[in-house]
């Protein structure tokens, strides 16, 4: 098995490096893909701006992952299930998460995980790598219920070092689960570079340990990502089991808004990475194909800008949750002691109210 076959179709300027797949002859998919990549990036810019002005909490930028998330989301069926990590806003938004709700989540409000449009998709996973096992559980349910569906789950390069991820690959192999694992190998786990995570030649090699297919893909190349994802999904739908895709990208941003990457990362490396970034590359291809021009670009930016701004405004206008909301979803039915504590919390939230309960 040779997992190091680095799948690539477009070079950094968007020029094909090999014959393109048949589907790439039509512009429609590319236009849609480009639309969402630009949307994702504008959402990102806005989120950072909101954070800088105190209107959002610590935020994990998606910058540099557009070329992975967008083609993956576009390849999935709506009844597939997404089990994301915390950097898949682009994927989530395409699958239906309203922009408002995406802001809400990063604004420190649980309602950001509640949108009915998310269906059975999982919310963001903050504890690293735990999502890989949840995805296997979801895929097990699909398999038990004989559904022709697949589960797609993401993880960072750092996350691949945690036991959960490796246990997940392993069980997916043994149980032949309809699950697609996608590593966003953006080369950094906060300050820790890829080579300190593992001595594996490629992170895709971790598939070998689990006896499943693994492939390394250029994560800045949407054609390669679509190809790899589609094949993996087909395998899943056809009962042929799991696939591991290592999407090689670069974290073009700080780890989060609470991080300062200049403390540990070389500026030249970052510069070089910008040269490979996915939006420019796709635009290059579209322009070369005659599908895109300055004017269309301008119109798109304008439209998306409006959408994002409106969502941000809606987000900011949204009334906060009631205090009791953090009690109300602890259990399907609130136990006695929580009813009591909920009352204290409500009273405390009133002017002059106190947290401390009445003595007997």
């Amino acid at each position, binding site marked *: 098995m040779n997992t190091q076959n680095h799948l690539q179709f477009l070079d950094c300027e968007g020029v094909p490096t090999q014959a393109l797949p048949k589907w790439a002859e039509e512009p429609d998919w590319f236009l849609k893909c480009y639309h969402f990549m630009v949307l994702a990036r504008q959402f990102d810019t806005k989120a950072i701006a909101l954070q800088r002005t105190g209107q959002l909490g610590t935020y994990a930028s998606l910058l540099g992952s557009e070329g992975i998330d967008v083609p993956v989301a576009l390849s999935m069926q709506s009844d597939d*299930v997404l*089990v994301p990590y915390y950097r898949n806003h682009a994927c989530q938004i395409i699958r239906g998460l309203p922009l408002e709700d995406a802001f809400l989540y990063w604004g420190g409000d*649980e*309602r950001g*995980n*509640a*949108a*009915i449009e*998310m269906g*059975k998709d*999982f*919310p963001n996973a*903050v*504890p690293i790598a*735990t999502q*890989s*096992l*949840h*995805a*296997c*559980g*979801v*895929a*097990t*349910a*699909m398999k*038990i*219920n004989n559904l022709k569906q697949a589960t797609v789950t993401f993880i960072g390069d750092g996350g691949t070092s945690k*036991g*959960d991820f490796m*246990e*997940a690959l*392993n*069980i997916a192999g*043994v149980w032949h689960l309809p699950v697609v694992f996608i590593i966003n190998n953006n080369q950094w786990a906060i300050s820790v570079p890829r080579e300190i995570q593992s001595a594996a030649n490629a992170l895709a090699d971790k598939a070998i340990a689990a006896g499943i297919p693994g492939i390394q893909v250029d994560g800045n190349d949407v054609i390669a990502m679509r190809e790899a994802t589609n094949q993996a999904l087909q395998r899943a739908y056809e009962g042929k089991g799991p696939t591991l895709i290592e999407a090689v990208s670069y974290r073009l941003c700080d780890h989060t808004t609470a991080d300062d990457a200049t403390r540990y990362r070389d500026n030249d490396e970052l510069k070089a990475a910008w040269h490979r970034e996915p939006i420019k590359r796709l635009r290059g291809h579209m322009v070369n194909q005659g599908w895109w021009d300055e004017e269309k670009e301008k119109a798109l930016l304008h439209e998306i800008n409006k959408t994002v701004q409106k969502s941000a405004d809606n987000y900011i206008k949204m009334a906060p949750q009631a205090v009791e*909301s*953090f009690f109300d*979803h*602890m*259990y*399907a*039915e609130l*136990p*006695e*002691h*929580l009813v009591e504590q909920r009352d204290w919390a409500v009273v405390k939230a009133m002017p002059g109210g106190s947290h401390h309960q009445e003595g*007997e």
Partner: protein
Amino acid sequence: MKHSVCLLEAVNLALASEMRRDDSIVLLGEDIGVNGGVFRATASLREEFGLKRVMDTPLAETMIAGLTVGMSTQGLKPVAEIQFMGFIFPALEHIICHAARMRNRTRSRLSCPMVIRAPFGGGIHAPEHHSESTETLLAHIPGLKVVIPSSPARAYGLLLAAMRDPDPVIFLEPKRIYRSVQQEIEDNGVELPIGKCFTLREGSDITLLSWGAMITETLEAAAALKEQGIHCEVIDVASISPLDTETILTSVRKTGRLVIIHEAPRNLGLGAEIAATVAEKALLELQAPIARVTGYDTVMPYFRLENHYLPNTQDIIDAVTQTLEFS
């Protein structure tokens, strides 16, 4: 139909019964399939329900818990077995960070109806790590329910309730009494309530609170004390989270005296919470300090000395006597 069963068989009976009723229930764990579990709690279920509903897993507790969380959000009701409670630690991240939080995190969009079963407690001469009582680690976690049966009938009824609960339930089975008592129970699918104590014996002089295997010694002590004319009220806490504070307070208000008995270490054992709550809500009704008869704050010794670690009937009798003598 009536069955004369021990606690272990009652677990098996409840699993089989509910699996017949509810197709969404699936079991997973190490050695639960052909082998029927190292204690035989899942004996013959693989034969009846097949590979898809009784799944032997690779050896990885983190994985078991993670799969369980995943499955439970998608319309299945997984019942996972952790072979011994001493091996539950790798599962805690998924239990604490996900099972206990999914409903709240998603404002009820997703939830985790699931059961994790694990035998626990000492006294069976087992190797290291096979005798723990670390129920505190689970009872402390908001979002979980933690249930411990102490008789075949309660094992049957509470396990049914656990499988029907819309939220994650940790079901701890006191293995020391897995086979010690046979009881006639009817396999009628009738559940017992989670979140309620069971008063096993009424009495007016003193309240004895316990759960799991220690119920045996607690009842023994109560019977012996009766001979001396002392009337103990014996309560099986059964649901250690959420706690049925009302039943406990009512009893203590009646008797004025309380002894709590558990195997777990004393420091931050559940006895601490019960004592603190009672002292807070019924201080003036207490006629003596609350006594705790517990395991020590040491590692459970290897089995040659484990009986020195475990509280025994005499310990309970002595604690009752002292509590009654207090003035």
